[in-house]
């Protein structure tokens, strides 16, 4: 069964919602088995992640990072490339950001320092994806294999760099020194006090801008046309004169840069220093977001907010319900990936049959 038979409203809206509901249903069952009330838990979750302004602010803070990693995975997917390496690319992007900060935070003014650091994050993330892209384009080494290996290499490399070079003398935690205050991303509570003492910052606005640029580039530009043609039918793309190896290398560079930009929110928006394993799975969440959001800007946004809400709400939930451990979030995330990714078209035959019956 092919979901191409279905009208667009069904694939874009009904299928994701059904998949999401299925994941939630299984999650509810597990919460029930843990001895808690699913409906009450959902109430807590929604209240602390969406309804409460401070909670919503946290949700959007997490979502800011996820939008970038989701975009990273999505844009590569448009070219038919499954970039599993956003995790490592964001990690290395964080290094680029930190090096820029450590080098310039005492010499440059804030208006110059922040863009330079953002540039460092994008540059390092992009370069980390460049080699897998090159190997795929010129040598046919599968991008899934190379990017997943690059995640491990990134983790080891960062271990080494942080421990050997970045920990200031006399500090116990495995992280770099804190940056100067002028290097902090302006927080949105400066303008909207209702958000409370939360780290939601300008990165969120940058993420929205990135979504818009992504949408225009992919669907309205000649470059995006070539990108999608490459992803949908490489033979036709070759016939059309598209330089496929250049396209693959370029899109991986952009994908890596987007993943690298994910570190801006995490580091400059919150911690203000580089710490070990700060990515914490955001790159992998990006895969789920790209799958669930169907690589569409609105879909990516909604999925990113959903995952942000799950983290925020899940954290509060585990505080209030001792039977529900914090790991429940990872479990629900897994369910969403299962239903929205692996079983993406699970309900397609049923919907297709239903539509056929109605048409007679």
């Amino acid at each position, binding site marked *: 069964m092919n979901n*191409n038979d279905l009208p667009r409203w069904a694939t874009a809206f009904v299928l994701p919602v059904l998949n999401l509901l299925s994941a939630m249903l299984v999650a509810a069952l597990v919460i029930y088995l843990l001895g808690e009330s699913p409906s009450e838990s959902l109430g807590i979750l929604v209240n602390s992640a969406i309804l409460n302004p401070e909670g919503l602010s946290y949700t959007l803070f997490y979502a800011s990072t996820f939008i970038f990693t989701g975009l990273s995975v999505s844009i590569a997917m448009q070219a038919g490339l499954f970039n599993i390496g956003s995790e490592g690319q964001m990690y290395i992007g964080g290094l680029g950001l930190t090096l820029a900060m450590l080098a310039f935070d005492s010499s440059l003014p804030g208006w110059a320092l922040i863009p330079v650091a953002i540039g460092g994050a994008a540059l390092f993330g992009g370069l980390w994806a460049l080699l897998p892209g090159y190997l795929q384009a010129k040598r046919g080494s599968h991008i899934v294999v190379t990017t997943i290996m690059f995640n491990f290499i990134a983790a080891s490399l960062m271990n080494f760099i942080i421990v050997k070079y970045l920990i200031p003398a006399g500090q116990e935690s495995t992280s770099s020194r804190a940056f100067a205050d002028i290097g902090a991303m302006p927080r949105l509570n400066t303008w909207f006090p209702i958000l409370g003492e939360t780290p939601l910052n300008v990165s969120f606005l940058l993420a929205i801008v990135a979504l818009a640029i992504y949408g*225009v580039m992919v669907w*309205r*530009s*000649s*470059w995006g*046309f*070539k990108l*999608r*043609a490459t992803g*949908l*039918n490489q*033979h*036709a*793309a*070759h*016939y*059309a*004169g*598209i*330089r*496929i*190896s*250049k396209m693959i290398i370029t899109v991986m560079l952009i994908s890596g840069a987007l993943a690298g930009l994910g570190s801006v929110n995490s580091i400059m928006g919150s911690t203000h220093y580089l710490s070990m394993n700060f990515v914490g799975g955001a790159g992998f969440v990006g895969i789920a977001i790209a799958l669930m959001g169907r690589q569409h800007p609105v879909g990516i946004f909604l999925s990113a907010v959903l995952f942000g809400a799950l983290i925020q709400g899940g954290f509060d939930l585990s505080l209030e319900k001792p039977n529900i451990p914090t790991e429940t979030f990872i479990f629900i995330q897994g369910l969403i990936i299962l239903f929205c990714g692996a079983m993406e078209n699970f309900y397609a035959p049923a919907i297709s049959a239903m539509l*056929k019956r109605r*048409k007679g």
Partner: protein
Amino acid sequence: MNNHPMQPAVEFRNISKHFGAVKANTDVNFTIAKGSIHGLVGENGAGKSTLMSILYGYYKADGGEILLDGHVQPIRNSQEAIRLGIGMVHQHFMLVENMTVLDNVMLGSEGGFKLSAHRAATEAKLREICTRYKLDVDPLATIHDLSVGAQQRVEILKQIYRSANILILDEPTAVLTAQETASLFEILRLFKDQGKTIVLITHKLQEILDITDTVTVMRGGRVIGAVPTAGTTKEELANMMVGRPIENNLPRAPYNPGAPVLHVESLQLQDDQQVKLLRDIGFTLRAGEIVAIAGVSGNGQSELMEILSGMRLPTSGKIAFLGKDLPYGKGHDADGLPRTFRELGIAHIPEDRLRNGVVKNFSVMHNTILGYQDKLKNRWGLFNFKAIAARCADLMKTFDVRPANGDLRIGLLSGGNQQKVVIAREVLAQPKLMLVGQPTRGVDIGTIESIHKQLLALRDSGVAILLVSVELEEVRALADRILVMCGGVITGELKIEEFDTTRIGLLMGGMHKS
């Protein structure tokens, strides 16, 4: 047939089959006489394949019944069809390439745990069948060593071994040379003499006249008529298929070739394993002429077209376009080269439409700019979709693309309409040289006519056209000159006045020196 006076082997009664809103078969009624060769003709989408799939147990009919030997017989799956003596030879062979003929025949009827004993018995039986039906096949040969014609004989052998009494052949001659076709027909006649029944699905009307006893014509899922072959003509059958008269000889301007557009000299191509795919290809193509390359598919024509369109690099040789060498460059792959060639004025209608010519999941509109995407962007690199949509609407009107909805995914259009979009796109580029591969493959008769008209108009306007076709009818209808290829070599050249099926068939088989 005289031995079995109109005893029905198969009778279709009111067979109907719907796929959603598409009515593939509506009230199909006709009878296939025992011991006869029954032709089944119709355009693509006429419902022939659906009907045969119902007979072979692939589909379940929504209504109606099938009678075998006069008894109502439900056929629930293809195993049951095989048990009832129905055999099908598909257009695309169902053979395991790296197994022997014997193993392929045994596949699915291994006959128990001990393979060797059964294998010996099967081999003996196969040899016996080969002698009886004059099938020239070595049971111990490996499939990939066999020619296409021989592979088809293996398929037939398989059916006889499974004691098929009713043999369905779906477009069996599409991949055969004239000689191979003749020998296939010999086998079918022998088959018929043994009292077996044959259903021949084909779109080649000459073959219907050559070999069948009765012919059923389908159009739009219905039976339009069933007539004895003896009393009908090609024109009558074509009219029934299309529902209107078909022009046989399309008008064209007198042959008056201009300056050379393409000049190829000692072109060679080797693949990675040093296998020679093209050897010493040389020819000249002039403005305002159609040169057709005839040949059985897989004899180097596709590779030649790929090289000329920039999709593939030649190993060596000289190719001049409008007096200048084509810029193959020093790179080791042809990545991006088709764009350069297109800008020089070379357009290409690729033979494998779905693989190269279109992006199936793009809309019709997006497909109308494929290959020309960078010509239609503004200085920001963005498309003006209003202009592109207008251009697409125009194009669909001029080239009669149906349905005329540019937002539809092109995969939803019929093969003929997809092809019209590709042709329109390439014609609109106003090329100097048009490379055309199999322009009417999988396209129905009515559309073939309109495609042929367009190509002739292009020729009359002074474009040089290189046509690759495996259909001799098409070559005859379009070409000014004919090159025949076999085994990567040009085996002969004919003027259109010298057109001779037998001679071309011999050249296609590589028999140019004897």
